[in-house]
């Protein structure tokens, strides 16, 4: 039976889906979604006690209340769990800024200043993913064992960032060197492997990806911030968060994945 009572849990990247649900609640008939949003630092401070998701630190308690208006969250009613927003490919791509391995196209073409082995690069990516806030909550929910767990990775940076790379310099440089496509394939292969025992990956909808490394700007412009108020737009130069239209696509993909589960 397809699970229909779904908890979406994640960081600021949940905002797009949350607003999409508010704007168009009938788009996913038969599904009930709740969204729990917290800053990533709070994820390791969550525990499940007697079917209730509880914050275990003062900071996490404050975040739970501030961003969700509740002290804790009973889980008994949910039969599927969706973790959104982390580990983002753009963040993991920071690893290749410090060192690259032999299999990078740029290394094959020009060599590299800091060379590491392919195995070490793989291991660094695996460790970065495994230590991410999202994987901590994925493992917690998988261990709870009351329904499938899906991981929705954060959207690739907006194509707009290419003309304003501050803050994403490592990413733009990777694209310019011709390393982005192979590094993303590698990231997805390792992410899928790390998730294997715990969750399934819901990949970014292919129709939103341009030049193999960016999200088309129409899915990114007009994104909203995480906070008690839900109407605060990100500044124009924010290139990592998607807008509610993209959030709707994410939910479409989640529903499709749950139907297959």
């Amino acid at each position, binding site marked *: 039976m397809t699970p229909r009572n779904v908890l979406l849990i994640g960081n600021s990247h949940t905002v797009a889906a949350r607003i999409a649900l508010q704007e168009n609640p009938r788009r996913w008939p038969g599904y009930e979604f709740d969204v729990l949003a917290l800053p990533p630092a709070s994820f390791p401070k969550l525990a499940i006690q007697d079917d209730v998701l509880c914050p275990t630190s003062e900071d996490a308690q404050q975040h739970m209340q501030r961003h969700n208006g509740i002290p804790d969250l009973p889980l008994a009613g949910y039969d599927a769990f969706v973790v959104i927003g982390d580990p983002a490919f753009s963040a993991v791509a920071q*690893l290749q800024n*410090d060192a690259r391995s*032999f299999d990078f196209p740029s290394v094959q073409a020009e060599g590299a200043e*800091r060379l590491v*082995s*392919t*195995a070490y690069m793989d291991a660094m990516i695996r*460790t*970065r993913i495994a230590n991410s806030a999202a994987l901590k909550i994925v493992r917690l929910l998988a261990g709870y064992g009351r329904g499938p767990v899906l991981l929705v990775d954060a959207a690739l940076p907006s194509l707009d960032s290419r003309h304003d790379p501050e803050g994403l310099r490592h990413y733009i440089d990777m694209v310019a060197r011709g390393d982005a496509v192979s590094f993303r394939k590698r990231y997805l292969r390792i992410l899928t492997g790390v998730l294997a025992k715990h969750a399934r990956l819901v990949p970014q909808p292919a129709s939103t990806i341009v030049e193999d490394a960016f999200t088309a700007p129409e899915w990114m412009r007009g994104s909203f911030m995480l906070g008690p108020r839900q109407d605060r737009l990100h500044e124009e130069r924010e290139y990592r968060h998607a807008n509610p239209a993209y959030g709707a696509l994410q939910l479409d993909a989640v529903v499709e994945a749950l139907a297959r589960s």
Partner: protein
Amino acid sequence: MTHPYADLPPQAFWRSGVADADPAALDGIYQPAFPLGDDARIATAGSCFAQHISRALQGAGMQVLDVEPAPNTEAPELARSFNYGVYSARYGNIYTTRQLLQLLQDSETGHVELAEIWQRDGRFFDAQRPNIEPVGFVSVDEAILLRQAHLAAVQRLFRMATHLIFTLGLVECWFDQETGRVMPLAPGVVAGEYDPGRYSLRRLGFAEVLHDLQQMRQHLHRHNPSLRLILTVSPVPLTATATGQHVLPATTNAKAILRAAAGEFADSHEDVDYFPSYEIVTNPAARGRFYMPNSRDVTQQGVDAVTTTFLRAHGLTGGAGPAVATATSDDAATDLVCEEILLEAHRK
């Protein structure tokens, strides 16, 4: 009436210098031939035991060079499992003088011997540092490229260092009759294939070790004439010997050769010092307490005795007791990176 022994200090006599003395703090056992100043840039290399000395120096705030650091600091355990931060470069353990001499020569020429890229289960291993990559390289090309990068780093290291602390460990090595080169492990232990017609055991004698040390010094001084060398002998016995001898006399033979050659070499050069790690740990007055129950690995107490003696002699501890206690009393040896132990692990 007087005689030559009448005015000697207590450490000149066995009873006062050893039998009645604290084995963890032997007075006067080491008087440095030259200082390790605050501005010293120290390179470390050698057999497994050298890792203790490297850590002690780092713990004392000395500048221990690392020319091949991990690219980031977010996963220190992972980095260590790939031999980042173990020594001043990623050469792994260097057990013999011949191995270090060869490395110095290779670092000057950039030479990579293709026959020293070994294969196992579709992965590739660098025979000169067979444990440096836990799962090997993905291809011969990658192994060669990373060895070339390593050799360039080694060249940089020995041109910028002010001191090299080298721990001599073994005299047994594996000799490739086709290339004339030696390897720290026999082919077939970690990877590669053992061909008895090509590879043979070589046991370096006193004259060879001394000659290697002389060649090493010449190499080092060619581009860095003020570099100073501190030699010490590892107190860790052989894991195994392939000489046909019992391992106990084989160990005694090896350590005697290394100790004698290091001493002779240090006595002959003002820029070379000898530090008695071997003597401190094997001191009979310690009644075996510096060795673990396997009678091979050194206890944390033994490591502290060695490192504290070294640091105090160089004025680096400020008399504040053991300068570095990086491990609990039981795990001094188990957190070392040590290929030699694989000989035991792969025993039939």
